[in-house]
């Protein structure tokens, strides 16, 4: 059957693309739109490396079909920084060495940003449970939690 023709908004830009029914949003982002910041770690929703925002909701893009996002808004890691200015989360990840290999970092930044938008003053426990869907094998999560908390402080200061 013919491919789907989809129009959507990605990181604030109008985009259009063609996709097969079975192509996931992650496939579309990486292979069609060349936005390789979202990563495939498992393709089964168990690692969070593909996290994006869909109409303001944190989701795994490997669990969304490309043809489902017609008319909708997708926000990826590539849209987190504003021009040359890093988001406080990105800055704090760097300051606190909250990344080692960095493959999980885009997912954590997107998920962490979603948390802080919903809960500007999360406890350690709330941070850990919110981020339980983001696997990290390098850091043991310690510095990630520190970075998220510090970013929350920075954002509350405004």
């Amino acid at each position: 059957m013919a491919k789907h023709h989809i129009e959507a908004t990605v990181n604030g830009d109008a985009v259009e693309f063609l996709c097969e029914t079975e192509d996931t949003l992650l496939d579309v982002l990486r292979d069609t739109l060349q936005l390789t910041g979202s990563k495939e770690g498992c393709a089964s929703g168990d690692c969070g490396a593909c996290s994006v925002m869909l109409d303001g909701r944190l989701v795994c893009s490997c669990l969304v079909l490309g043809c489902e996002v017609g008319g909708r808004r997708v926000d990826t890691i590539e849209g987190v920084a504003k021009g040359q200015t890093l988001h406080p989360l990105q800055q704090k990840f760097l300051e606190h060495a909250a990344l080692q290999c960095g493959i999980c970092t885009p997912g954590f930044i997107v998920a962490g940003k979603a948390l802080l938008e919903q809960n500007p003053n999360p406890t350690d426990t709330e941070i850990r449970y919110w981020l339980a869907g983001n696997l990290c094998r390098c850091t043991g999560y310690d510095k990630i939690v520190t970075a998220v908390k510090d970013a929350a402080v920075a954002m509350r200061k405004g």
Partner: protein
Amino acid sequence: MAENGTNGTNGTNGQGYVGTRTIRPDGVDKVTGRARFGADFNLPGQLIGRVLRSPHPHARIVRIDTSKAEALPGVKAVITRDDFGDQPSEFIPAGEMMMNYKDVVRNVMAREKALYEGHAVAAVAAISAAVARRALKLIDVQYEVLPHVIDVVEAMRPDAPVLHDDLFTAGVEPKPDKPSNIAKRVEIAVGDVEAGFKKADVIVEREFKTAPVHQGYIEPHAALASVSEDGSTELWCCTQGHFIVRAHCARLLGMDIAKIRVTASEIGGGFGGKTVVYLEPLAIALSRKAKRPVKMVMSREEVFKASGPTSGATVRVKMGATKDGKFVAGFGELKYQAGAFQGSPVQPGVFCAYAPYDMENVKVIGYDVVSNRPKVAAYRAPGAPISEFAVESVVDEIAKKLGLDPIDLRMMNAAREGTKAAYGPKFGPIGLEQTLNSIKKTEHWNMPLRKWQGRGVASGFWFNIGGETCASLTINEDGTVSLMAGTPDVGGLRAALTSVAADELGIPYEKVRPIIGDTGSLGFTFLTGGSRSAFSGSMAIVEAAKQIKAELCARAAKLWEAKPDQIEFKDGHVRPLGALAEKVKPMSIADFAKIAGKTGGPIGGYGRINAQGAGPSLGTHLVDLEVDPETGRVTILRYTVAQDAGKALHPAYVEGQFQGGAVQGIGWALNEEYIYGADGKLQNAGFLDYRMPVASDVPMIDAIVVEVPNPKHPYGVRGVGETPIVPPLGAIANAMENATGIRFTELPMSPPKVLKALKERGLNKV
């Protein structure tokens, strides 16, 4: 020339970036998604490659018919064992393990037999992933299914199905005349353990069992190969060692090494699992045949089924001590499962078992055993976590039997400078005692514990390696510096090397920009592993900086018409000394850079070394946990790591190694394992049921960086990456015993096992 060297143990002559928490130069790209990992590269016209894998754990491959796949429109190449020449048997050291190309070529593409479920049998390159998947289904493989064997003890039995009929146990006398699954026997022995046991007031003997666990890197293997008509090849892949990948591919494909240029992408985790080749030779072979670039990426299921986890093992340990706590004898028998081809890390397991302790009488025997599972690959201190788990558990039992504090007991027997290890070398300065003392001084050590909570401590050892390493420093026309390192950066290396370069040259950190050079840009550099990349890389940078400083001083001598003893390099400048200082002013690196062309040409230094003098890193871990007696579920409450880094070039990334290794150890101890059915097939080939710790599973991991400088390194550095995974298994088992009174000897200590043990003793009530 006046002394201008820098000695890390006496401080540096630069601004002092080493030892501070600089922002890593590659960091911005990583937090914005710009950094390119293995699967992030694409080439115009590329094909997608996929691998056909054996559904059987053990089968003779009778016939492979690829004709239907080749005829499918969109398929541009199909390869099988026929596309790879056979390799003669030859053992080659590969970092901390040994390898044999005869096995490598068979692991990359099965030849006579499929030896594990997931073993590569054929591969295709097609215009899309969908066509490639369809093509795989059209490949007709005729298998003769054979009985399989999975468990290591089962595989050692004389009547077990034999995997290789040309495998005869090495290291036993008389030489066996029947092939078996026992590839080799190794042994170390010092003193007389039998005599030692006779001196003991207390003897503890236990048998332990561990399951295979995977390194669990979040990034699956990925490679993109492009072969030109003249055979020159470009390969991008995520690897811990691109020079090793180049060597393997050249060998397997019969190519000149110079004809292959490998670029290491950013790597999303390796931990030893990306020190070998899987997709790379296949991608090159397909590209060569298809005459187009071929991109291959493993699925998560393929990663679990077809890339090497570490060994599962059965370990017996027997230790004797006097009533004062002196260890008088240590015996161990380790049976490690190697997977489908020989080469488990049983030898390092044997070497490390008792290495933290100064003991007169030690005998450790190890067996390397093949079975129908994926060939094991290195996993962070390969072999040591298993053997040291056993020893640290028994040490804990001895402490309890003697009524001694477990830290005091270890202190009493701790290896120190001058101790001769059972596996051979005499130790230089090492920091085990300091880590034990650090742990004892923590608040953690004194925190009160409630019922069903327990505390455990364990120490750990890993030797670390140096090895061939190249790095270059180039002075650019504006005085900024380009740094090129040869070891892929798995987690902060570029930050550490940049600090070293900046301090050596006395220039600001921001003026040094590091990259990881491809294989065409540097001499052979051994892989990132063995905790060597910061240790060796910084040595090579020091060498490169030395050359630059010498060159600048020589140019100044010409310029100033001065003698070498009137000139020194200090704080980023060439400086005139004595009377000369009244005649000429100091010149910075940037000053020389401006006139480089006129004074002899571009300025640079190239460190090409075989780094020696790697010092062992020892650590001690402390863990508090709580057991839910009604369910067997374990919660880690508190965790502290103290480990000797020699000199922490970048403290935050050193702490990160401690924390990451500890959490991998927590997963290994409590929940991670390969689960096989009776059919020899892996049941949990995904992150859902291969249960690695998530953020809510662990607390903060307190990291204490101990620094006992390594005198053989200009800054005192010891590798730190591997030791952190060694103590957690023992520490957690010891904490479980403290919480429940039960000694668990089988990993993982998952809830069904824990509950069963509690219930058997009537303890499963709050």
